[in-house]
């Protein structure tokens, strides 16, 4: 079987377009030494990666919490992949604006969209636009140095914060709000966020979810970390866990262990928190509230900021993952000055040429093959929806890569016409005044960030101004 590898190797295109909430699966493109069962394609494919920001890595840089540096080790794998001579990175290119998807399809035999979920789900309740209310996405972007969130200036002058959501992002935010400063100081959290947190008055954080303990979406490692956070005590109501011990007796191990940890924490006598040892002025606390659905963010007397949230009490219909929260009619009010909405991310449509299911917030596809558009594929959150950890998205990328390779092998993907790849895209970009950032450009920015961080004992000091990034590389 002949491959088009002879005259013009097929150029595969994996755009890693979004930043923050996209990016996880980035170059889990067919590894140059891929072991897919198509040996004749070894060494055949060229892969170009396009990214909206100058800098790569997406969510690994902008979503993973600053105090989780081990999770970021995966960037070393990414770097190794991109350094292959068959792989190239082009940052500072916004697909859909600087170059369209149809133009990319002219330039490449296959195009893979893995641009993630840059937007967030909306609460859809009165008062959600009041000062003091922020989306988790913006808050996380703020402390992680995402350029578009650098001027967020969240108001941390109140005592109580309310996070709507029971996922890992909600736990991340609670942890960053309550972590002792001396721990945060040594991470890659931005300098300005650190300064803001140093003046924060927040000492109590509630994580509020519509459903019950058996429906929490966060995972046990992150919960354990929160429970063990120095200077903060967990506040869990034992009444929320009545009868759950037996309910999870035969549950799959992950759900069982997670629930047992919550039960154990709820039943433990509160330990005197060594406030002085933790460096906090007074002991901080955090808690989980269940079966509460936000109805309205309540304004202060002058109407100028949030002062609390009215919550509808719910009961559960059904069980397990498919349980539904039904309002009972009863309500309660929770006083707070900071409200963070962490109810999930959402993908956006990219280009009129790409079908998009706005109901489900994904590109309609079958195993990563975009419905109705031969040669177009998708992977990651824009394919499956915005949930999962690195391994979930990594496996998903392999799934899409498999589809591409199957189509190559089966002749579904026609690689006989020569495609010019970046040569064609480059001229399009030049005509539009767009200058892409190369991977070695990124390495200059990387070196600058690491050098700046060194002085402060941090792994890096992130540059948050894209203009500054471009200056460093002489663009």
């Amino acid at each position, binding site marked *: 079987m002949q491959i088009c590898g002879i005259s013009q190797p097929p150029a595969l295109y994996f755009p890693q377009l979004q930043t923050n909430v996209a990016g996880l699966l980035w170059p*889990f493109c067919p590894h140059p030494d891929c*072991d897919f*069962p198509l040996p004749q394609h070894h060494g055949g494919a060229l892969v170009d990666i396009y990214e909206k920001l100058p800098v790569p890595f997406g969510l690994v840089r902008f979503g993973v919490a600053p105090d989780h540096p*081990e999770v970021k080790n995966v960037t070393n794998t990414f770097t190794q992949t991109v350094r292959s001579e068959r792989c190239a990175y082009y940052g500072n290119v916004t697909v859909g604006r600087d170059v369209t998807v149809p133009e990319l399809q002219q330039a490449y035999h296959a195009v893979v969209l893995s641009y993630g979920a840059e937007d967030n789900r909306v609460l859809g309740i009165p008062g959600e636009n009041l000062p003091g209310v922020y989306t988790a996405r913006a808050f996380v972007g703020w402390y992680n140095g995402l350029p578009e969130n650098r001027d967020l200036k969240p108001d941390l002058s109140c005592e109580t914060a309310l996070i709507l959501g029971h996922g890992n992002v909600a736990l991340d935010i609670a942890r960053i709000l309550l972590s002792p400063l001396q721990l945060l100081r040594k991470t890659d959290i931005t300098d300005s966020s650190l300064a803001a947190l140093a003046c924060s008055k927040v000492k109590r954080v509630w994580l509020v979810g519509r459903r019950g303990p058996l429906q929490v979406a966060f995972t046990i490692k992150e919960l354990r970390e929160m429970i063990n956070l120095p200077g903060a005590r967990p506040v869990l109501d034992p009444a929320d866990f009545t009868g759950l011990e037996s309910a999870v007796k035969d549950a799959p191990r*992950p759900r069982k*262990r997670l629930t047992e940890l919550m039960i154990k924490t709820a039943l433990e006598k509160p330990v005197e928190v060594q406030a002085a040892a933790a460096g906090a002025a007074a002991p901080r606390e955090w808690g989980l509230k269940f079966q509460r659905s936000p109805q309205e963010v309540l304004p202060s007397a002058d109407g100028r900021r949030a002062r609390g949230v009215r919550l509808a009490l719910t009961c559960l219909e059904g069980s397990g993952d498919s349980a539904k929260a039904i309002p009972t009619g009863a309500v309660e009010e929770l006083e707070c000055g900071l409200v963070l909405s962490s109810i999930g991310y959402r993908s956006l449509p990219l280009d009129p040429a790409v079908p998009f299911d706005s109901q489900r917030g994904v590109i309609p596809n079958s195993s990563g093959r975009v419905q109705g558009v031969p040669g177009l594929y998708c992977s990651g959150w824009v394919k499956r929806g915005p949930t999962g950890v690195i391994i979930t998205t*990594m496996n998903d990328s392999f799934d899409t890569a*498999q589809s591409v390779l199957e189509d190559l092998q089966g002749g579904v993907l026609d690689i006989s016409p020569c495609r010019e790849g970046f040569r064609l895209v480059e001229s399009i970009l030049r005509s539009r005044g767009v200058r892409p950032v190369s991977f070695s450009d990124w390495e200059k920015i990387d070196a600058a960030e690491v050098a700046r961080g060194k002085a402060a004992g941090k792994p890096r000091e992130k540059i948050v101004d894209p203009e500054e990034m471009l200056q460093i590389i002489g663009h």
Partner: protein
Amino acid sequence: HAHFCSEDKITVHFINRDGDKLTAKGKPGDSLLDVVVDNNLDIDGFGACEGTLACSTCHLIFEDHIFEKLDAITDEEMDMLDLAYGLTETSRLGCQICLKKSMNDMTVRVPETVADARQSVDMSKNS
């Protein structure tokens, strides 16, 4: 200075996702992640977090008699193992398992991923 002769090395066979057997050697005390990395074994996506218990990509399946003799699993390892795909009764994270002489010639299996599960379904359709 130390001199490693072949008697000190422990042989491990890895059954890769495509059924291929990869054989490599390591020293006592090396983790299975060390063995994969040091021998440049071609296992897709293995060891993403580089042995820091922040992922589950070094998930391996052990033979019963080897599994029973492994050091007890910690909460930290189990927390991450619980997120692995294709978990079995004899699964562990490779970065936490260190080579002992008694493991010489053992066989470990690389678990399948979502893509592999799909492959095997496709293949059965053709038979």
